[in-house]
């Protein structure tokens, strides 16, 4: 207690930095977000339910959450493989592949949207190939999933990569000397140590995919009840000047985001506990 009291005032600028931080945060983030909940407080319960849980909205949640879950699963799987290849194997142009992983962060979502739509559309290189076999990707849920995979891919790789890098090779060597097979080493040593970060990466890419708007609207086709995602429904409601419904659906999505943040914090706690055991 004494120590924390001392360090608190050794360096100047406590009040200044505190003031800037909380003023900025409350003006940019807290005040606007609290409006959302104030706004729905003014709506009667029945109106709220009919806006937030209408058939169209429920279908939109189902599409958004379901496909985000699917794309997060695919991302975790391939993210693990890509991270593994980048850390463990000597691949030609490693630096290039490594930089490429961050591409979805650097490429604006609208650009990704139109480019994926063309690529997987009937005129594009992959789309035309698949079309001749009778597969249709653009304007179907598969297209939405592809856009979601694109935007949330780096989260999966970048959370797993540092943990794989930090794994102590001595533990694996030891297991090998004691006669464990490669599969057994993976199963008993590598996978459990990577698991927390795998789950974190999964959660992050789920959150990103769930809220994604820019790239998905181009490839989705946006048919109500079929390929309409929840963020798009908010935009539709805003364009109809139906601000109550827009506020309701936004508040629902925001609450889900808060729950995800909460679970991320919990995951961090779990990670730390795990690290202490090792």
């Amino acid at each position, binding site marked *: 207690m004494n120590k924390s009291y001392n360090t608190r005032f050794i360096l100047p600028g406590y009040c*200044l930095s505190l003031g800037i931080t909380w003023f900025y945060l409350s003006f940019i983030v*807290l005040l606007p977000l609290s409006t959302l909940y104030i706004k729905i407080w003014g709506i009667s319960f029945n109106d709220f339910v009919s806006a937030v849980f209408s058939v169209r909205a429920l279908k939109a949640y189902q599409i958004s959450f379901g496909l985000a879950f699917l794309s997060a699963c695919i991302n975790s799987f391939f993210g693990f493989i890509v991270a593994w290849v980048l850390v463990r194997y000597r691949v030609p142009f490693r630096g290039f592949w490594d930089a490429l992983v961050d591409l979805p962060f650097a490429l604006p979502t609208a650009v990704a949207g139109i480019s994926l739509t063309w690529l997987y559309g009937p005129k594009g290189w992959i789309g035309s190939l698949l079309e001749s076999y009778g597969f249709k990707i653009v304007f179907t849920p598969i297209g939405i999933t592809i856009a979601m995979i694109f935007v949330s891919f780096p989260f999966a790789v970048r959370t797993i990569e540092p943990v794989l890098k930090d794994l102590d090779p001595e533990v694996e060597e030891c297991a090998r000397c004691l006669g464990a097979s490669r599969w057994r080493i993976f199963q008993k040593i590598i996978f459990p140590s990577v698991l927390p970060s795998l789950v974190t990466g999964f959660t992050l890419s789920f959150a990103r995919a769930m809220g994604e708007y820019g790239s998905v609207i181009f490839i989705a086709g946006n048919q109500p009840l079929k390929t309409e995602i929840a963020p798009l429904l908010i935009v539709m409601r805003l364009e109809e000047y139906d601000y109550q419904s827009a506020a309701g659906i936004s508040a629902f999505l925001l609450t889900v985001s808060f729950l995800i943040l909460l679970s991320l914090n919990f995951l961090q706690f779990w990670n730390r506990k795990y690290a202490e055991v090792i």
Partner: protein
Amino acid sequence: MLKSYRKIFIKRYLVRLFRLSVILTALCFMLLFLIFPLVVVFYNSFKEGVSVYANNIIRKDTIDAVILTLKILLIVVPLNTLFGIACAWYVTRYSFRGKRLLLTLLDLPFTVSPVVAGTVFVLLFSVNGLLGSLIEKWNIQIIFAFPGMVLATLFVTFPFVARELIPIMEEQGQEMEEAGRMLGANGLQILLKITLPNIRWALFYGIILCSARSIGEFGAVSVVSGHIRGKTITVPLEVEILYNEYNLTGAFCVASLLCFIGIITMILRKWIENKDPLIKYREGSRYGD
């Protein structure tokens, strides 16, 4: 004897085959999902020749959009940098209650949908919104105008600088600042002569991430912009408008500008990571730590 040799040989072959297939899977995935989309943009924008490309770039709408994007960038990045330095100083140099909460708030834009961020500002500042009466009295337009777009971009990009600085400043500790204090430096001197030189690469890195995001932001800005031609169209919105007008080549030409910026961002990031490997390491481990 021979049999066991053959067994070892087959096993080794299988291991090598497995390794090869894993590498191929990873590279094919990246080819399909990352390289192709990038190549497609340049392929489509240069398909009809360089002159068509140049004409699409120097159109008035495109130039207006670029200027608006730059204006937003010039307001958003300095503000977020100031916030980033103040917040990182506050979090790493003092202990206080609610630090955990503050750090969690910094993760907010990563989990909240950009559309929700835009909607929030529409609800707050539109005519029948919560501050609508004030806005009307003062006769200023926020939503469907420049200030709203700045606010939406600020919301989406505010933690980028702070999140790069906090782990670095935590790592470096505060002995140097304390020594400076003992030797009689005041707060400004400590900041300018000790802290900022120490964190310069991380600061630069955060500024790059922040600018890249604010140039490319689509969802939040699209909700608050109102799509008024020549007034509230940023570069990503221009891409959308051209695409919806079935001007595919035009859309890809403008998109290629954004791609160039994205590629420059990636090269700069790589360059800084080589300068200061600590950054690269922190980048991923912020959650996995």
